[in-house]
């Protein structure tokens, strides 16, 4: 180790010995984000890989099955011979029994989740202003919308499991109502399996998110974050919550629209 003398001109050897102070030389934060936020980002990155694996599996299996061909002249029906059209499967709406509302309920669920994302950003924004009352208010709204989404999904699942009134006559002559992991009245069994796994895994994320939100609401109310001097925890939970909304955007497209 050499000490740098101010009376001598710097040689290149001196310059090499000096501790380096560049962005990536240690001792600072090159990504300008706190440890907690970075770790949340990396967790979400890994979670994105998990969800992408699910959706890619859906793409693979769907392309393996024949698609319904409208030009062949036969009307669409539930059959294991081809992949079902989503707006023929998801066309029920609570309270509108027997009516054909293609994708209506999913549209509502999508709006609820987008809106919960908005109330979440509003909570984060209130946190930046150290406005405890506003943080509480917007967290409560987010919890409400999150819980509503979960309830909607529960309805969607129970309807999907119960099936239509007429059921579907299978090739072996039996009539199947609804779907589970082993039988499916709407089409190939794998369609139901993927529905349960993909929307179920997403729903589990929403549920965890609601738990985190309830916890952060309690902590906000107790003044934990105010004492700490910042609401970064709300921001980190916000990142997670937006990610859940983001995943739904993709599930919505690849499961219900395409």
């Amino acid at each position, binding site marked *: 180790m050499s000490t740098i003398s101010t009376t001598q001109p710097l040689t290149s050897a001196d310059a090499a010995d000096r501790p380096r102070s560049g962005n990536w030389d240690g001792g600072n934060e090159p990504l300008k984000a706190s440890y907690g936020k970075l770790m949340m980002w990396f967790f979400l990155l890994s979670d994105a890989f998990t969800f992408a694996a699910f959706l890619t599996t859906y793409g693979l299996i769907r392309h393996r099955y024949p698609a319904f061909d409208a030009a062949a002249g036969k009307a669409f029906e539930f059959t294991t011979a081809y992949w079902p059209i989503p707006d023929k499967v998801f066309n029920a709406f609570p309270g509108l029994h027997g009516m054909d509302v293609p994708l209506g309920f999913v549209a509502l669920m999508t709006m609820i989740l987008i809106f919960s994302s908005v109330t979440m950003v509003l909570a984060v924004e209130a946190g930046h202003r150290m*406005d405890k009352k506003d943080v509480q208010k917007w967290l409560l709204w987010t919890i409400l919308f999150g819980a509503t989404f979960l309830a909607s999904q529960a309805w969607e699942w129970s309807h999907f499991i119960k099936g239509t009134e007429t059921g579907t006559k299978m090739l072996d002559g039996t009539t199947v109502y609804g779907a589970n992991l082993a039988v499916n009245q709407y089409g190939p069994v794998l369609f139901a399996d993927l529905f349960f796994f993909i929307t179920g895994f997403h729903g589990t994320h929403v549920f965890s998110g609601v738990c985190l939100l309830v916890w952060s609401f309690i902590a906000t109310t107790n003044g934990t974050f105010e004492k700490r001097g910042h609401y970064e925890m709300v921001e980190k939970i916000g990142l997670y919550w937006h990610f859940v909304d983001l995943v739904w955007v993709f599930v919505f*497209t690849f499961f219900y629209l395409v």
Partner: protein
Amino acid sequence: MANHVGTEHTTHTGEIPKPNTGWIWKTFFILVGITALEFVFVFLMDPSTLRNSIFIILTIFKAFYIVAEFMHLKHEVKALIWTILVPMALLVWLLIALITEGSYQNSFWNVFN
């Protein structure tokens, strides 16, 4: 738009600054608008590769607004933005590879069944 977040809002006088939420609602209306547009395509257009491409492009737009604005990634340093985005290229590759694989297996559908 760039200065809508940050610790500069924090005051030590106990006074709470006014909320700055215009950008949040703007993003919200963009997301709602794109979703509405998707439904227009669901009902006014027959299923086709073109329609699916439109859906995927609109989805990427929505994802951009959620990640850039709501998750604030647009306002982070470049290194963080690329750290998150570059691994996603692997997923695009995986998706294209496995969908191609699925279509290939489909071409033997009658052989398998």
